[in-house]
């Protein structure tokens, strides 16, 4: 039960100041650019909502967003269960736990462009181990087959980010007081019952973080598809970020680019909001207590 205390603002103030400095001011500048049409720095026209109308009706953009959405959902469906499963079988203590933590973290700390380059070579059927092995099983060519391209980027995202879920879940599991496991043992609970009634409920907060974080980050994926498939074959892996960057860089239209990034930004915020509201519904129910 939270206590009402407005003095808590002092604890939060430093955070607000820092984030406002880093976030609000830049945003205001972008918004400014977005509603102007920049022909040249000296010749600006107030164009208003024209860009925003253009964006929401452009079929290319719509399909890119749809692709990103599908991609994120698929990524989540793999990463969350897989991440939990790995976290549960990780060593809990001793040197093995330390080694496991290091091994699990490695994919996370490799810069995205290096991951892209590595997998680019690795997945080629002519010069890469992964591609070579896969071709023993079926015809794999991510440069020509859209399904292969999609599958590859999905695999890269899973390889790269499942450890994030694993680390969060692992930390969450270690935070469960042993008494809960002891009580469950005394109650004669099966291992599955322990997972369902002790671990999952206690992991709710951590899973929420993993869910939202991973969905949004997968939605905005950029570097890996850029390096590996370039958005192809065709537009199979042209996700929202890739399309928007192409437009901004390719056409060097600051106004349009600004508008697009702002739209993108707004859509991301709305999705975050929806996700967040749904996922924290249960928290809000539990606020009242009997006296």
């Amino acid at each position: 039960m939270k206590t009402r205390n407005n003095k808590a603002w002092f604890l939060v103030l430093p955070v607000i100041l820092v984030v406002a400095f880093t976030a609000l001011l830049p945003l205001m500048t972008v918004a400014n650019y977005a509603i102007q049409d920049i022909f040249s720095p000296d010749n600006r026209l107030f164009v208003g909502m024209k860009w925003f109308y253009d964006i929401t009706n452009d079929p290319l953009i719509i399909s890119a967003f749809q692709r990103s959405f599908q991609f994120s959902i698929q990524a989540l469906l793999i990463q969350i269960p897989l991440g939990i499963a790995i976290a549960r079988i990780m060593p809990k203590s001793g040197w093995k736990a330390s080694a496991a933590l290091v091994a699990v973290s490695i994919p996370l700390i490799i810069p995205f462009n290096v991951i892209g380059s590595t997998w680019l070579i690795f997945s080629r059927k002519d010069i890469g181990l992964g591609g070579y092995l896969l071709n023993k099983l079926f015809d794999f060519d991510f440069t020509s087959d859209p399904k292969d391209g999609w599958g590859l980027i999905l695999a890269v995202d899973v390889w790269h980010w499942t450890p994030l879920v694993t680390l969060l879940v692992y930390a969450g599991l270690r935070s469960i007081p042993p008494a809960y496991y002891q009580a469950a043992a005394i109650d004669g609970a099966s291992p599955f019952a322990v997972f369902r009634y002790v671990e999952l409920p206690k992991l709710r907060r951590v899973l929420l973080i993993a869910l939202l974080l991973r969905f949004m980050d997968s939605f905005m994926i950029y570097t890996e598809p850029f390096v590996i498939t370039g958005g192809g074959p065709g537009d199979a892996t042209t996700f929202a970020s890739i399309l928007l960057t192409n437009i901004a860089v390719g056409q060097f239209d600051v106004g349009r680019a600004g508008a697009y990034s702002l739209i993108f930004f707004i859509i991301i915020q709305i999705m975050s909001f929806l996700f967040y509201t749904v996922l924290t519904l249960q928290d809000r129910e539990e606020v009242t207590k009997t006296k």
Partner: protein
Amino acid sequence: MSKSESLIKGSFSPQKKKRSLPWSGLVFWLVIAIWMVPVAWLILMSVRPSADILGAFEIIPSRFTFDGYRDFFLKEMWYKAYLNSLTYSTLNTIFSVTLALPAAYAFSRFSFAGDKHLFFWLLTNRMAPAAVFLLPFYNMYNAVGLFDKTLGVAVAHMLFNVPLAVWILEGFISGIPRQVDETAAIDGYSLPRFFIMIFLPMIRSGIGVTAFFCFMFSWVELLIARTITSTDAKPISAAMTRTVSSAGTDWTLLSTAGVMTIIPGVLAIWFVRKYIAKGFALGRV
């Protein structure tokens, strides 16, 4: 020999350790082995000449080259960039976690005017696509004199790391029953003393994981770091783009840099490993 000692020598029964299914350990290491194959591939790439990488499929390289490593250690551009990135990522981690802890505690324990909106606003900053901020950051950081400084990047990265830190820490703090705070208050602990001596050890898993994530996200961030630096504070991620030239990509050098960038991350997780693994400890107040 004391009575206890003689009894021990005679009939010591080792404490029964509850072992999880023995095969789960094997499965785990098997999964890890497979997961690490691309990393092994990366390491191999770092010692093969660029032409070979593109030319032939080899698991055992037929030709070795350590030019990549030589360049990395000897060329100032590389090791300087490495140090730059290390500096700002570490600084950022310290700043972010330190600022986030009191805020996370406030969000968890208190309700105050606008708290839910504030929390969500924080989250939106983590979710914001970096591209939106590039141009404004470029202008802003120039204006305040933080352009091309590691401190500047450390501050800029707080944009997404502070919200993440607050978010994760709030989750872990909320896992500790409020009665712990209340008991400590009754026992006469002041809030700062209670926080440091009793509370922090209880949430150390959360702190460990938060610190690692802050370091990691700052370390791999490319766009912002590259935008607000030029020569002095150039990050390693920007240096790596130098491997792509009109002659094509120097895969060897890129892979070497890739391998080298793994090391600080490994150090970071090593540093916090005990925090993450030890987890919950209910202090007997």
